[in-house]
């Protein structure tokens, strides 16, 4: 199975040399992108939980349950192999936001555990465009003491950041077309 990082155009260099082992502390990553398109247009691209075709690393999405919280699930089949299973937990169409979690992933695909995430589209302050925000909370994939470097906290943060940045960049490109 090839890691998700190979499927991404961005380089996922593994953690720096001085990376120290960490204890069980949760990490957070938040990435935003400004998009020159109305929020409704951006939301229309991402609003179906069952279709993550807007992310460049996703080959196809197998899904069921529509956008119904605690029912909707999806499996992301990644370009280059590997998959991620996720469940929708909260969905706010009016607020253009949803919250979901990973229910199953191999840490060689994405080196995280207990991962949950929120995707939100907002109007840009001052009008004329939108801001898409993707934020996640997770632990490193290796939950025991002294993780190997490729499974440590820095590796987890770096991987999630890369996923978000690649996804948001493509969302911007799609919405501004």
């Amino acid at each position, binding site marked *: 199975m090839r890691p998700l990082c190979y499927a991404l155009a961005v380089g996922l260099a593994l953690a720096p040399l001085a990376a120290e082992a960490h*204890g069980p502390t949760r990490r957070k990553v938040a990435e935003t992108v400004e998009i020159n398109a109305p929020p409704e247009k951006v939301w229309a691209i991402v609003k179906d939980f069952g279709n993550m075709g807007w992310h460049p690393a996703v080959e196809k999405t197998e899904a069921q349950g529509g956008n119904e919280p605690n029912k909707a699930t999806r499996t992301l089949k990644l370009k280059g192999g590997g998959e991620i299973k996720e469940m929708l937990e909260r969905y706010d169409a009016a607020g253009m936001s949803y919250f979901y979690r990973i229910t199953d992933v191999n840490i060689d695909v994405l080196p995280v555990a207990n991962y949950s995430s929120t995707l939100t589209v907002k109007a840009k302050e001052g009008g004329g465009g939108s801001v898409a925000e993707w934020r996640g909370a997770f632990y490193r994939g290796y939950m*025991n*003491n*002294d993780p190997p470097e490729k499974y440590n906290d820095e590796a987890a943060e770096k991987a999630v950041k890369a996923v978000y940045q690649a996804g948001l960049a493509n969302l911007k490109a799609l919405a501004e077309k």
Partner: protein
Amino acid sequence: MRRVFPALLAAVLLAGPAAGAEAWVTNQGDSSVTRLDTAAGKVLATHPVCREPAGIAVAPAGGRVFVTCPGSGEVARLDPSTGSLAARVAVGQGAVGIDTDPDGRRAYVADWYGNRLLVLDGDTLATLGSVPLGPVPAGVTLLPGGRQALVAVRDADQVALVDLESLSVAATIPVGRHPFGIGVDPEARRAYVANVESDDLSVIDLERRVEVGRVKVGSHPYAAAVTPDGAKAYVTNQQGNSLSVVDTATLSVTATIPVGEYPEGIAADPAGDRVYVACWFDNILAVVDTGNDSVAARLPTGDGPRAFGRFLIP
């Protein structure tokens, strides 16, 4: 011990309008502790500590504040009058939950990886002993009086009642799945245990040492606090971004308060009508008015506030 609390309360009331409690919040993201004046709603100081602090336990009477730093595998002691680091010791990366007796003579640390409760000298932080426990000890809460501790043994789905004089387990009490933080009422009648995986709150009768109820709360409950009169328990729903308010007489949820993202550590003001909640994602300490169960203020903290433990100096 049960009589001390009403006496304390009376003393505070006699002293006139209660000044707000001082909150000591561990900021995991920037390796610091923020001290807040909760009445004035302002940050008093930010002190650097060891790496990625999570747990905290204050012993104002003893002039001691203890912090766990899983990032650097340390426990540190701060001087609450200056905020300076007075002592630090390596204990391994599993130190998360911590509590102390009212005088800070000892600190008790749950060792996440070592499956034990460590007993540290409050002055030197030298290890005095340890109590073997089941897998992944998480939250530690001393009962009023400081002679017994409750430890959430997360992966065993139980709470251990530890006798702190003999350093032995006096009882193990099965609870919900993956217990984490524990709140106890001031008279030590009951303990309220947040069960992260089963989304509920276990209610333990401390005299009988059994679970007497289980209340469904929000998503991923993390920690709990009890009002000074014991009438209400507040539970942080870490992934529900809310607090569940539990009526302790009927064991029902009477309100759910949206509070901020990833609420974690929680404490009830022993002299007043406030509970304080650290919201890890939002970098705030939410102040909740227990009179109307709404958020009265959101105070800024450092990055990634956790405040897991006893973090209020009344």
